[in-house]
């Protein structure tokens, strides 16, 4: 069973719809007992980091997510959900994240760039991974974000995208996966990535 964590931020139905279309059985919940039985936990999210981590604390989900990550359950963070996996974010202040992965979330600071980084951008392969199966450097995915991951753990970065800096687009450390873009809004390429994810986690 796959759980999409409903922690009261943004529009998470689109992720559910995309996964259901691929015949994945998903449950949208914030019930810890249900989450504890999941094989994979999806952490979606749009909006602000502060509200998101605040809600995870409010619903008592921080320990639950850490515990499940430690026992090897798949944890997949999408967009803001990916940023939550890291140690710290500097979005409108300084906030601690889940700390499942090492790195910090910082603002695009090139004054020549439009922020948010909004629209379709190339995926650039950094290393082989099941998640990148059948993807080419000609493939585009849809991004919407104003902050990005800075991390020294280059070996965890599977795809980047270029926007003034190298923006980590897909990251993975064992059972922990993050996607900075929106696979559910990335047309046929997004479907391909979700299919790869399905093969991995189901």
């Amino acid at each position, binding site marked *: 069973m796959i759980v999409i964590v409903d922690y009261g931020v943004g529009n998470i139905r689109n992720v559910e719809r995309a996964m259901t279309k691929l015949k994945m059985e998903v449950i949208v919940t914030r019930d810890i007992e249900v989450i504890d039985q999941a094989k994979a936990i999806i952490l979606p999210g*749009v909006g602000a980091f502060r509200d998101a981590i605040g809600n995870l604390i409010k619903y008592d989900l921080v320990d639950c997510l850490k515990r499940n990550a430690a026992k090897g359950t798949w944890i997949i963070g999408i967009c803001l959900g990916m940023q939550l996996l890291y140690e710290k974010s500097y979005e409108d202040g300084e906030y601690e994240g889940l700390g499942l992965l090492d790195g910090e979330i910082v603002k695009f600071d090139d004054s020549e760039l439009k922020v*948010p980084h909004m*629209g*379709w951008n190339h995926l650039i392969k950094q290393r082989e991974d099941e998640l990148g199966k059948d993807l080419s450097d000609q493939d585009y995915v849809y991004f919407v974000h104003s902050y990005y991951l800075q991390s020294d753990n280059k070996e965890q970065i599977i795809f980047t995208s*270029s*926007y003034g800096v190298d923006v980590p687009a897909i990251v993975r450390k064992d059972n922990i996966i993050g996607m900075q873009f929106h696979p559910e809004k*990335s047309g*046929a390429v997004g*479907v391909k990535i979700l299919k790869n994810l399905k093969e991995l986690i189901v």
Partner: protein
Amino acid sequence: MLTKRIIPCLDVRNGRVVKGTKFTDIRDVEDPVVLAAFYAQAGADELVFYDITASNEQRDIFLDIVKKTADTIDIPFTIGGGIRSLDDFDRLMKAGADKVSINSAAVNDPQLIKEAALRYGSQCVVLSMDIKKNEKSRWDVYVKGGRENTGLDAVEWAKRGVALGAGEIVLNSIDTDGVKDGYALEITREISESVRVPVIASGGAGTMEHFYEVLTDGKADAALSASVFHFGEIEIRELKEYLKKKGVEVRL
């Protein structure tokens, strides 16, 4: 590289797409969901729906279209038209819209931009501006479908909107809209250079070259059009191949 976006716009009244269409390859061109799916398939990067419905009952029909569209397509879409309050925002976001655009309501109550951005994040809040050149060659912001001049300067209003939290601007030039004589390049460039959020140019596309101009000289991040796509005068794939050949980064 981040690509320039091509965005078809669908005006919807009483549940149907307005403006005549002549597609040979789809049957019900007035069904917004069918047309949305067609455009998504044809290579559109995003879609914009404007609800031009008059009455409240018919707004429920529109909400249902938003839900069905979210179920059907897997590219982002923006909803605009008649959004007055945070409640309207909530309803549309819950129905599956990725972004909501506000126009007159933002002029009446600029705090709406801020409240919506705080709740959903700037990336969901699009400030749509109807603008027209005045006798001093500056551009004024209009509301009520272009009938009322607010006296606001377009560049100043854009900056203020972004400062309040708008994550994107749609710039619709009233003078060029429907004329098919090209986008309003100068003001698009000026606003694009004045704010740090993406700017979508709207109003005036008649040829593929017009798209090229506004995405290069006009410094727009995206170009929106209704009629050239609806009437089948320009095909999205063909347009993108043309742009790519001319050195513009597009998603093909």
